[in-house]
């Protein structure tokens, strides 16, 4: 099943115009002609009214026996303009719906074992309610979103995230969330259902991309206000024109005036605006991020400060042994041997890396020496681990302060040099572990954080975009500083407790900055709620997911960066297409004004710089261009304009050149070409 699902999801991801979405959208284009729906978009409503006026004019011509072809052509072209705008919105909706539906298929009608007292009863997942306890056995699909209350399981989440490696989910940890449609590979868990059917985050997201509950985002509202005002301006400009012209006894053809009006009002951006907003949500969904509101996506573009966890985001999850530093008088091999012995049964990646490094440097433990070794496991209280080998060797490794105390207790002195070594390693960004042999300090092992490749460049790019990055880590300040320097973050908080994140966010906000952070634990919930953009990992606790305004299905710590770019791209697409739309007006004036006054003011043909065939074809060409530019820009509106990260200056210059200058020049060429084609028929 998961294979077909992935196939479906890939298709939804790739095609801009997959045929079923297009077919759906074409149907909707007509149903959206409903005037009540058109009223929601004042710009297109004016076009819609203009269509009716032109249609009336054509009918009046027909009845009175005047030539009616021109008026009818205008009416049909205006109708087409409205349909194209409807199509753009419907297509964006269809694509969003397809994307969400592919996620939803994973959870359709699963069987669930509901626990009632001690017994389990099998019901359909649609009957599950919030608060129900369900039992999930090995190999079963998770029937609903929930939190593990009992047990531990290895879960295959590939159906949701597309990531093939299974993950561990355990009760009572920050990774206790399970998602409907994922499969439990091993283990048996009891899960508490966290949402009623139809109310999960995914359901809410689906509603957001569909018409009903879609709310305009703040910037979209502001832009709509401006576009409405501009539309009203042109209504005034065109409506007053016949009165002014009457003073010099010029009568202007009504249908040409309607055409002029429609060409001048910002139909391009007005028609594409809803589609751009939906497509922004859709792009978030394609990045496997569920946004709880359109506003959240938009705000992401405004973020000034990113709060990033060190582990997983900046460094690889595991620290690796990088160096053995013996104290004076101790042979390096002896330190290596003791360190490897202390890690002999240590299954953590750190422990294994110590054994591996010792072996690489020529000190291998004989496998038999491990047999019968007594293992001292690491605990949070002792903060050290080790092994007693059968040969009598007692090897220990652990946190420096703890180990030095043990050395003192056992009567051996702490070498003067040891604290210096510890300090030096910490300052270098690594974690020092002190190694002892039968109570005597031999030296230090350095565990280094491995900074992800390419992360430094990424941060440099963020800085150019004007974003501040703050690393959050539980490490001591010395280590944190070293890693911060290596990764190139702007600031860090070391020895961070969850409340430090909240404090930092408030401080940043007080300075006027907008903050984004990612988190998964219940501890993170207040900070996630306080942050302007709080992105919760899907693997995280329910509390974290409730507090956040976005959820990352992949639980990928670097996703924040992507979300910021999606937000910026959304705003840039709106701004650029507004600029383009307005710049188009210049050419349209040059096409229509000479045509409008052609008979009345003879010398005006000098303004016909495009040398358009006849007044009729000039007006028709401008209207055709005005209609066709909408579907031509639909792919751009849905994909978003290409976003090249950079400073505001470079972005403005680039977009001004492409959409401002391009918007000025393109219609001159396009209208001329259309005129040549129209000239063949008229």
């Amino acid at each position: 099943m998961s294979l077909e699902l992935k196939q479906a999801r890939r298709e939804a991801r790739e095609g801009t115009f997959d045929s079923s979405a297009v077919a759906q959208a074409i149907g909707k284009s007509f149903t959206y002609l409903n005037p009540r729906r058109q009223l929601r978009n004042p710009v297109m409503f004016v076009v819609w009214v203009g269509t009716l006026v032109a249609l009336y004019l054509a009918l009046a011509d027909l009845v009175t026996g005047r030539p009616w072809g021109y008026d009818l052509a205008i009416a049909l072209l205006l109708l087409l303009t409205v349909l194209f705008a409807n199509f753009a919105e419907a297509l964006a909706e269809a694509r969003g719906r397809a994307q969400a539906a592919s996620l939803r298929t994973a959870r359709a009608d699963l069987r669930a074992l509901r626990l009632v007292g001690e017994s389990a009863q099998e019901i359909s997942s649609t009957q599950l309610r919030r608060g129900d306890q369900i039992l999930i056995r090995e190999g079963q699909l998770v029937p609903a979103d929930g939190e593990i209350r009992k047990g531990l399981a290895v879960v295959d989440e590939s159906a949701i995230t597309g990531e093939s490696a299974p993950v561990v989910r355990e009760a009572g940890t920050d990774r206790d969330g399970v998602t409907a449609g994922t499969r439990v590979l091993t283990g048996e868990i009891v899960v508490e259902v966290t949402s009623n059917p139809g109310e999960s985050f995914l359901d809410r997201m689906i509603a957001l991309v569909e018409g009903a509950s879609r709310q305009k985002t703040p910037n979209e509202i502001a832009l709509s206000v401006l576009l409405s005002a501009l539309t009203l301006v042109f209504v005034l400009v065109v409506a007053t024109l016949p009165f002014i012209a009457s003073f010099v006894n010029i009568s202007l053809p009504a249908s040409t005036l309607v055409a002029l009006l429609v060409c001048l009002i910002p139909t391009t951006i007005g028609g594409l605006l809803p589609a751009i907003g939906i497509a922004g949500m859709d792009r978030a969904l394609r990045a496997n991020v569920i946004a709880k509101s359109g506003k959240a996506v938009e705000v992401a573009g405004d973020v000034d400060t990113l709060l990033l966890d060190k582990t997983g985001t900046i460094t690889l999850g595991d620290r690796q042994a990088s160096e053995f530093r013996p104290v004076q008088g101790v042979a390096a091999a002896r330190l290596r041997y003791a360190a490897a012995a202390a890690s002999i049964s240590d299954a953590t990646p750190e422990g294994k890396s110590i054994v591996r490094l010792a072996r690489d440097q020529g000190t291998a433990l004989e496998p038999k020496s491990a047999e019968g070794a007594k293992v001292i496991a690491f605990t949070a209280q002792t903060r050290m681990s080790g092994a007693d080998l059968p040969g009598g060797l007692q090897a220990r490794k652990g946190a420096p302060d703890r180990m030095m105390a043990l050395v003192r207790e056992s009567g051996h002195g702490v070498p003067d040099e040891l604290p210096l070594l510890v300090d030096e390693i910490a300052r270098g960004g690594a974690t020092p572990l002190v190694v002892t042999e039968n109570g005597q300090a031999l030296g230090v092992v350095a565990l280094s954080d491995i900074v992800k490749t390419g992360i430094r460049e990424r941060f440099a790019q963020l800085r150019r975009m004007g974003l501040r990055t703050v690393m959050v880590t539980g490490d001591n300040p010395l280590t944190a500083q070293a890693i911060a320097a290596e990764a190139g973050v702007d600031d860090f908080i070391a020895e961070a407790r969850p409340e430090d994140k909240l404090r930092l966010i408030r401080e940043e906000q007080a300075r006027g900055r907008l903050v984004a952070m990612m988190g998964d634990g219940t501890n993170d919930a207040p900070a996630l709620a306080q942050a302007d953009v709080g992105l919760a990992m899907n693997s995280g606790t329910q509390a974290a997911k409730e507090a956040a305004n976005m959820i990352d299905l992949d639980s990928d710590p670097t996703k924040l960066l992507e979300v910021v770019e999606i937000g910026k791209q959304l705003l840039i697409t709106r701004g650029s297409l507004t600029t383009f739309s307005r710049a188009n007006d210049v050419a349209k004036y040059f096409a229509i004004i000479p045509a409008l006054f052609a008979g009345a003011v003879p010398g005006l043909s000098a303004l016909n710089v495009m040398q358009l065939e006849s007044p009729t074809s000039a007006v028709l060409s401008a209207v055709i261009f005005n209609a066709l530019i909408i579907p031509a820009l639909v792919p751009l509106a849905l994909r978003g304009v290409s976003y090249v990260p950079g400073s505001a200056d470079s972005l403005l210059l680039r977009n001004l050149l492409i959409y401002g200058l391009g918007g000025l020049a393109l219609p001159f060429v396009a209208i001329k070409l259309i005129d040549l084609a129209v000239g063949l028929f008229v």
Partner: protein
Amino acid sequence: MTDVVLILALAVLLAWPLGRYMARVFSGQRVFTDFLTPAENGLYRLMGVDPARGMNWRGYGMALLWSNFAMAVVLYGVLVFQGSLPLNPDRVGGMSWDTALHTAASFVTNTNQQHYSGQAQLSYLSQMMLTWFMFVTPAVGLAALVAILRAFTGRDGNLNEHTHTNLDERTRGNLGNYYVDVTRGLTRVLIPLSLVWALLLSAQGVPSTFEGARTVQLIDPQTVTAGGQTATVTEQVIPVGPVSALVAIKQLGTNGGGYYGPNSAAPLENPTPLSNLLQTLAILLIPIAQVFMIGYLLGGRFGRMVFGVMATFSLSFIALIVALERQPNPAFAGLAAPGGNWEGKEIRFGIDPSALWATLTTQTSNGSVNAMHDSLNPLSGAVTLVDMFINAAWGGVGVGAINFLLYVMLAVFIAGLMVGRTPELFGRRLEAREIKLVSLVILLQPLLILLPTALALGLGLANNSNPGHHGISQVLYEYTSAFANNGSGFEGLGDATVWWNMSCAAVLVLARFIPILAPLAIAGFMAAKRVAPVTSGTLRLESPAFAVTTFSVIVIVQLLNFVPVLVLGPVAAHLAGGR
């Protein structure tokens, strides 16, 4: 040409220190005119004003509205009853109710559109009342500008007191004290400057007296025949009065209402080439100085951007109109008419200075004239119209810069989106509430210019002298002039009718106060917002790309709206050979 360059260079050179001085005055820093403080304090006591009390945008706006309304009512009374009031040596009768209403509206809005001839229809008291309005209305504009700028500097009442970027709630919305700002504008800027200019003009021969009209014997008595009777005219009555004081502030305060009907074309109002230079300079002085003031208050780089965009518009139109006026009128096409368009121009000034004056007086919302705009070549007339459509390069005292800030907000909104952030102006977000107000002002222009123009022309209310395309320009010009609070006229209108007086009065008042109050409200909203720090992701308002955006916004969003009517009016007149 040399005179044009000389005047422009002098204007910038003088405006620079003046702008710096004004910035210091309005931010309460020490200036050499501080000796006036006791006198000002006396005025505050007289008005019952506590100068230390700051106002939020509502308080400031209400004070502005009410004080202007009260003054307008007084003016209306004086005009209607001037016949029975003192200081009326020439026994001028009261003004008709509609002309008085229009005149009151015209002078309270810093417009000075005149539907009367001052020397014949006003008593000295009325003239002096009008002079008072010429002083106080530019001070009101300046005060509004300063209040708006305070919101963006994020500083409280005194602009200089640099406090933390995010002020606490108590001081956040404080835009200063309206009465203090107006008083300081009067005592420290407008009155001292006018004093200097009035003296200089008097030295050039502009009358300054309280005595009545002079009667002089004609050197060359004329014989006239009227109504079948023949008489010999041997003497002429020449109206004089406190002319130079009025002319000085008329020019400096972007007022434009002349003492005499022909304004600064009249020999007694503007007698010599030097007086003409002084008066042209005065048109530009404070409108340019306000840009320097912005630079000193909001940062030199932003100031340079504003100056650059305004200067680009201004210089382009100066060059264009001078070139156009050097051509003969298209009606003379084919005739051997040497030189440029001399119709309606004073020979003692010449073509270039007259063309320069025509464009500057419309660029700055001044409205005084030294030549007849009705006689400009049709396309030159279009240039003066475009000057007034923009009305923000350089614009009227205070209000020109406010208009420009509105264009900046619009440009910030579009450019801000293009760089992928919620648009910010000086770190404060421009949101739907602000954009609504900006949109209102954008909408106002076609509403208040095109709608009454269409009504006047379509319903045959225009009562004008010219039936052709030029007739359209005449009516369009009158409403554009009213909208821009400019006050100059294309003339040729029988404009002392109830329709003209009422429609113009409505346009004047709405076009003055809404474009002041809306930005003031925006400023109030913005002052309360948190200020985002500047990063490389922030739109830099001083960048050349942003300057280009602002320029394009003015051209595409504002000027393009008037292309159809300009085509029907001046462009068609040009093509039809000047008719």
